[in-house]
């Protein structure tokens, strides 16, 4: 009869978009690599505590080109074999946006998002400098994607005091998250972990679209709650413990 074994848990995608340009070499990319390892372990533990969620980790690096790590747009955290990201090349963020556009579609349409159900993905963009090319067109395309519109989005600017890059990150997160300044690369790992792991605990509930004045649907979500929790935790990030 109907195969119960093929019933799956709800899917939660965590997507890390990592600047792997030349300027990220050294301490910055080391912190990112270490963060990813620890995130993976934590998500595996979190998964075992939750009867309803399977975590999928996606690592999209961009430099001169954009690549999905292990050539996989997503991997179940349990199965992820992570090898260090190596930095070197330009900073072509627009190529990462193009890849993300393809990924943020339903599985039946060639993307990684579920055809039915699923949680709003968590997307974290890490960069230490402004992109080599203008990426407005690709971002506008992303903003037409329903899965991008519901995603919890965060940006981390790494050891930067650059308004242009800050603006790029702010455009990316929109109203669905925050841009965090990390002025010390030694703390980058903690920032990454804090954002991903706090957000991962958010559970989604069924809700409805409400029209804004332009008659476009506006998502009611728990992004606000997550933002508050992260802001509170960031104050103590130096002493933040698991």
């Amino acid at each position, binding site marked *: 009869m109907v195969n*119960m074994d*093929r*019933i799956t848990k709800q899917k939660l995608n965590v997507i890390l978009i990592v600047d792997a340009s030349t300027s990220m070499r050294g301490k910055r990319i080391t912190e990112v690599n270490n963060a990813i390892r620890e995130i993976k372990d934590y998500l595996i533990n979190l998964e075992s505590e939750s009867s*309803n969620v399977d975590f999928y980790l996606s690592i999209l690096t961009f430099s001169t080109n954009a690549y999905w790590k292990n050539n996989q747009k997503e991997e179940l955290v349990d199965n992820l074999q992570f090898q260090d990201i190596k930095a070197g090349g330009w900073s072509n963020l627009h190529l990462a946006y193009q890849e993300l556009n393809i990924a943020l579609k339903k599985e039946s349409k060639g993307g990684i998002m579920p055809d*039915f159900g699923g949680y709003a993905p968590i997307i974290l963009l890490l960069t230490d400098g402004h992109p080599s090319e203008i990426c407005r067109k690709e971002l506008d395309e992303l903003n037409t994607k329903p899965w991008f519109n519901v995603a919890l989005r965060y940006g981390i600017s790494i050891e930067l005091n650059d308004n242009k890059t800050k603006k790029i990150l702010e455009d990316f997160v929109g109203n669905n998250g925050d841009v965090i300044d990390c002025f010390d690369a030694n703390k980058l790992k903690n920032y990454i972990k804090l954002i991903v792991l706090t957000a991962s605990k958010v559970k*989604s509930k*069924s809700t*409805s*679209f409400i029209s804004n004045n332009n008659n476009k649907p506006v998502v009611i979500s728990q992004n606000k709650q997550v933002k508050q929790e992260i802001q509170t935790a960031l104050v103590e990030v130096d002493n933040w413990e698991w």
Partner: protein
Amino acid sequence: MVVFNKTCIGYNHIYDNIVCQDNSLSYQDDKKIIIAACDGHGGALYIRSNIGSKLACKAVFNVFNKLSLDDKEKLTEEFKEKIKLDILCEWNSLIENHFSNRPFLDDEFEGLNESQIKKLNDNYVKAYGTTMHAAMIQNDIIICVSIGDGGTFLIKGYKVEDAFPNSEDENVANITCSLCDDNAYDYIHLDIFSLSEIDGVLCLTDGVVNPYQSYDNFEKSFVKPIIKELKHDSNLAIKTIKKFICDLGISKGIGDDVSIAMIYTRGDEFGTKESIEKDILTEPKD
């Protein structure tokens, strides 16, 4: 012709001591068959969504029951738009009638903040928010209507198709369109199909489809086994499917309420002629 429906509470609602917010119906007489599956929203604001889903079943039944599809020339785009509007208006009318007889009680607002209470006092309809999936067969025509997550699916052989593929992107990540939305009309989908091309219709709430995640898995692991069983022994298959739905809700699924309403034209000649649930036709209990 196989016709049946089943609703079961989800285990999350059992643990949280919440009523089942799904409702479904199936109805058959000499001229028509009507099915529906509706899912009341689970958010804190939707304090009467179990009533909303019940009244959604009633609304679509009331409209479909009066409909005649005999004259095919009348089945124009304007006709479809009118039926959408009729269903929405009927639901709103039923909600209005229910609320006028039963205004909010203070204890219904327990756990809500001031902003949420104000929202409900400004627009009581929100409390009844629900999805709706329904279909009617009359003569050789199927009419399907749908709003929100879950879905209405057409069975062709062992394959299944979304009756409204263009609506796919409206409902993602457990965020759904609803009959209670101000612009609900824009998100109600309705279409008419020829029975000659279709072997059956499934109306499902998201508690049934979401555990399968992908169309491919849903078709292979849910639809295909069900069709095989129905072809083999419809009577036994219906019992098995209903038991599966209960297992899905109570223990095996994602914790959500589950509803199925189905018409299958190629099985044994086993017409259930199940009556519409009695309490759909009478005033719903609080």
